[in-house]
Structures are given as C-alpha cells and as structure tokens.
C-alpha cells in the first residue's frame, strides 16, 4: 500500500482542487446538524465531528430517486452517475457500502445504485475521537478501517497520514502530488498511536458473533416484547442506519408524465407489510423490531454473508425512546 502525508495547512488547497468536480463533504446546517452536502466553499467543510447524521447511503441510495419517467413516447431513464467525490466518510460508513453493494448486485443488478456508487471517489477520515455510542470494534473493524475507500486520511497532529487504497486514489494523489509528502518513520509511529488511542476510546462492545448465532433460538424470547414496549414506531433507526436499504416504489403524476420513484421505507412502519386486504404479517412493534434485528444479524448473514450493522451507533444515539441495539444484542447473546 502506498502511504503519504499531507500537512494540515494543505487540506484547504486539496479540498478546493476537489471542488473542480462535485464535492460532497460534511457541512453544518442552521440547526447545527452535520450532513454531507455539496461544497461551494471548502472553508465550510467541517473536520471535527463524530459522524455525519445521515449516513453515506443518503448519497448513494438517495431517499427519493427517479426510477423512470414515462410519457406517450415510452420510458425514459435518468442519468445516475455523479462522478463526484465524497470527502469525510467515516470508516464505518465506508464499510456499509460493501453490504449495500452485495444487496443491489445479487441476482438482478440494480444499476441505479451500482452506477452511482461506482462513480464516486471516496475519501475517508479516520475517527480519532469516536462518538460515545460507537461500537465498530465489535465488528472486527475499527476507527481506522480502510476498506471501501480510495483514500483514508488520519489526523496525526500536524499532518494527515494518507493511505492510498485504489487506482482512483493513486491517480488523485498523482494529480495533486505537490500537496503530498512521503511519510517519515515518526509519522508512521504517530499514526499507530492515534489508532490505538482511538480504539481505546471506544467504550461500547457486544459479542456480535455470539448474538447472531443465538438468534436462531431467540425468536420466542420474552426480550422482544420487553424491548419493543418503549419503541414508538418511528423510522429514525432505519433511516439513519447506513445499511438499512428497504425501499418503496410509487408513481407520481407530473403534468402528463408519470414518474416512478423509489423512496426509503422501513420495516418499523406498520404499513410496510400491510396488505390491501387489511392483513398484516407483522402486526405489532414486537414483530417489527424483531424483524429488523433478525434481518441485520441473521437473514443478511445467511443471504449475503454479511452483517447488516457496522457499529456506527446512530440508532442508539437518535432513538427518541432509548431503544438500545447493543442491549438487545447482549440479551440475545446471553439467552
């Protein structure tokens, strides 16, 4: 692997070079929420944050997406390639893309996701200060995990330590060669220390492997009833989850045209499975919450050899009633 370093003062220059294409990076809104947004001024890019609120899927699998438009002439498909750059992905979000890709690739290729995803260059930012709800290390990755990225930048004090992880990343570094230096041994050491520090700061842990093995026998466990009691049935956990990918497809009439759109949907909503006859296979919050956990930790594992969770902690952080995935998994693991 090629490694480089970049002096911190060069970052602004790097970002403004990236602005030659569409650059998406963490920006702060009026409410103080940090989300990926189209960068107009590199100085606005937020560099100190635990994680963006809406995961990277919001760029790769947008909440509202046109599948096609139809008129008398027939069906017209949209252009989905963005050819942009995403800067500031956290390693957990970068990892989430692997599962999304598998889902959208298997058997039938969903080119909306695949083409868009492939058209982005992804520059990660290692987590030197993980959030209090992070538990990525429980998944065998961590705050410096570099898979799914083209470049990974890690803050080592005065500089960023840069891992060049793909051909695309290599090309970008070459195009901006004046901004990069060769790392010294001291830099490498600093990087190791930063990683160890960051990993040490992750305070939450759960035995994911054991939990997912135990799910097979936990279906009728009382924990589903107990933990779902406080759930109010909103969609926060799923919509902010980097791997949740369920969707709906509906038609909209726009003047004389029809637009078929795909929008995020979630198994936490009762109408998700509600049939026109009134029958609902998952009628209460208990079945719905259980399905979400099973889907993530069992069904996806069976079908795609991949767990549908990366330990980003967004669901823990944002649940209005404090439903806690780690607690649920721990109870399953101990059952």
């Amino acid at each position, binding site marked *: 692997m090629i490694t480089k370093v970049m002096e911190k003062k060069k970052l602004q220059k790097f970002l403004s070079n990236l602005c030659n294409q569409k650059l998406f990076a963490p920006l702060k809104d009026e409410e103080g929420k940090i989300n990926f947004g189209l960068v107009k001024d590199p100085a606005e890019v937020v560099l100190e944050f635990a994680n963006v609120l809406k995961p990277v899927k919001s760029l790769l699998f947008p909440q509202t997406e046109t*599948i*096609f438009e*139809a008129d008398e002439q*027939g*069906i017209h*498909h949209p252009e989905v390639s963005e050819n942009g750059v995403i800067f500031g992905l956290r390693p957990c979000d970068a990892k989430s893309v692997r599962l999304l890709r598998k*889902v*959208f690739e*298997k*058997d*039938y*290729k*969903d*080119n909306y996701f695949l*083409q868009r995803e492939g058209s982005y260059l992804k520059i990660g930012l290692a987590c030197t200060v993980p959030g209090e709800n992070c538990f990525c290390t429980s998944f065998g990755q961590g705050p410096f995990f570099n898979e799914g990225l083209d470049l990974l930048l890690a803050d080592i004090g005065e500089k960023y330590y840069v891992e060049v992880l793909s051909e695309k990343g290599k090309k970008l570094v070459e195009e901006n060669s004046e901004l990069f230096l060769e790392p010294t041994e001291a830099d490498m050491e600093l990087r190791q220390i930063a990683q160890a520090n960051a990993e040490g700061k992750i305070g939450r842990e759960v035995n994911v492997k054991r939990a997912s093995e135990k799910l097979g026998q936990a*279906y009728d466990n009382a924990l589903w009833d107990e933990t779902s009691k406080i759930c109010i049935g909103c969609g926060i956990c799923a919509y902010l989850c980097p791997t949740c*990918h*369920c*969707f*709906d*497809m*509906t*038609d*909209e*009439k726009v003047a004389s045209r*029809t637009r*078929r759109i*795909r929008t995020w*949907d979630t*198994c936490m909503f009762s109408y*998700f*499975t*509600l*049939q*026109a*006859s009134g*029958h609902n*296979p*998952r009628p209460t919050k208990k*079945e719905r919450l259980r*399905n979400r956990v*099973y*889907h993530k930790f*069992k*069904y996806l594992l*069976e*079908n795609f050899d991949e767990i549908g969770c990366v330990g980003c902690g967004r669901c823990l952080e944002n649940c209005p009633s404090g439903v806690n995935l780690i607690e649920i998994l721990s109870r399953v693991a101990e059952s």
Partner: protein
Amino acid sequence: MTEYIYSPKPAKIKKIRQEAPDTKSFELEFEGKEKLTYLPGQYLMLSVLGEGEFPVTFFTSPTEDRLEVCVKRMGKVTTALHRLEPGETVWVRGPYGNGFPVEEWSGKRLVLVGGGIGLPPLRSLLYYALDRQKYKEISLVYGARSIADLIREEELVKLRSRGVKVDLSIDKEEDGWNEFVGFVPDNLLRVSPSPENSIAVTCGPPIMIKYVIQNLQKLGFEAGQIFMTLEMKMKCGLGKCGRCNIGGIYVCKDGPVFSYQRLKSLPPEF
C-alpha cells in the same frame, strides 16, 4: 447498454371479463404478439402508469394461446386497473417467482383447493396439467362466499367432461345451487381425496388455508405433499426492497410457491 431491472414493457388489454363483483380478468397482448415464457404459479408486476404497480399471478396456463390475469379490486392500483377499457395499455415486467415445481410432480395426482380470488394460480396449473398430460388425476375443490363470487363457474363445471373431478361450494344456501353448501375445508373433507401419490395445492384467504392444511393432514397428507402460493405485499419483485421476507427468504423471488414443510421451518410472519 445499461439494464434497468424495474422497467416494465407495454401490453394491450385485449379483452376484459367481469368474473365476480369486484373481480375482473384482463387478457393481455404484447407488441408483435410476443409470447411470454412462464410457469403456473409465477407472477407479473403489473403497472397502471401514474398509479403504481402490483404483483398478479397468471390466470392462464403457458400451454394456452392467450394470457390472462384476474384481479380483485382492493387498493389504489387495482381500482385504477378496473377503470381501464379494452385497447388501453398496461405495463408489465416479469415473470417472477419460482412457480409450481411441475416437473417434479409428473406422474402424480393433483388436488387443487381454492377459495374466492385464490382460483387463478390453480386454474393456470390445472390447464397446464391437462395439456401436458403428465399427471394422473386432477381434482379441484373450489368455493366462494356466494354463487356470484365463484369465478368461472361454468368453465369449471365443463372441465368435468375432460375428466377433472370438480367439487364446488358456496358458504351459504342460495336458490339454484345444487352443489355443496359450506366452507371449502369442509367440502375438502367430504370429497376426501386420497393422499397416495398426491400433491395438494391450495390458494385462498389465510383463514381458509389454515383449515385446508389441517384437513389435508387429517386426510393423511404429509407436509411435503402440501403446497401453497403466498400473498405478500411486494414492490420490487426481485428480493431487494425488503418487505416480503419471511425470515431469510423473500416471497417475491424464493416463492410465492412453498411447500407446507418449508413454510413450517420459517417464522410465522405471513
């Protein structure tokens, strides 16, 4: 060229028949009279553009020279479909799903048990079996709430002359009805088909299916001999949108046809 997996192709409505109150069948014809290759038990995603898309199973058999679907008016899209007239265009993609394992069943007796709008996949299978002549005996136990709700009653009665054992029923006594009065599961017990070298296939409302399975077991059918097609809310038809799962399987692509044996191993979420 990029492939778009959610994009349908146009089909003209050639003929519409009122099959029951709220239920119509639609004969569809593709551009250039293109023929669709499909199996009984598979389904199409049918769009009324501007309204939406829904899954609908084949009413006809691939051995017939026309393609029909039969739709009960339930929600937004089916209501829109019911408003269309012959000559108008709908859009379809598919066929999707596994369909019935018709090859595995050759040489066996078929017992088809249906209720109400559950007839279409059974009709498709029945004609397939008749036309292929690879099956031993075919028996149909079919019922509905009332005479008016029976789909294709006349046609089904005529099948008797082709050697099909047809037993019809309605739930409540009505003038002019000479056949069985009562629920489908009861009629099934009365008919008492033999489980020997047989396959039973059932389709209908969930409550009927529940009792049909109980009664089939009473008659000696094993779980592996009982098949059903499941109804689920579906959007993509390709195992991606995530709503039709029962445990780790997707009804849209791993089903909709399941043996009772397989279904028993899944969580009871259907």
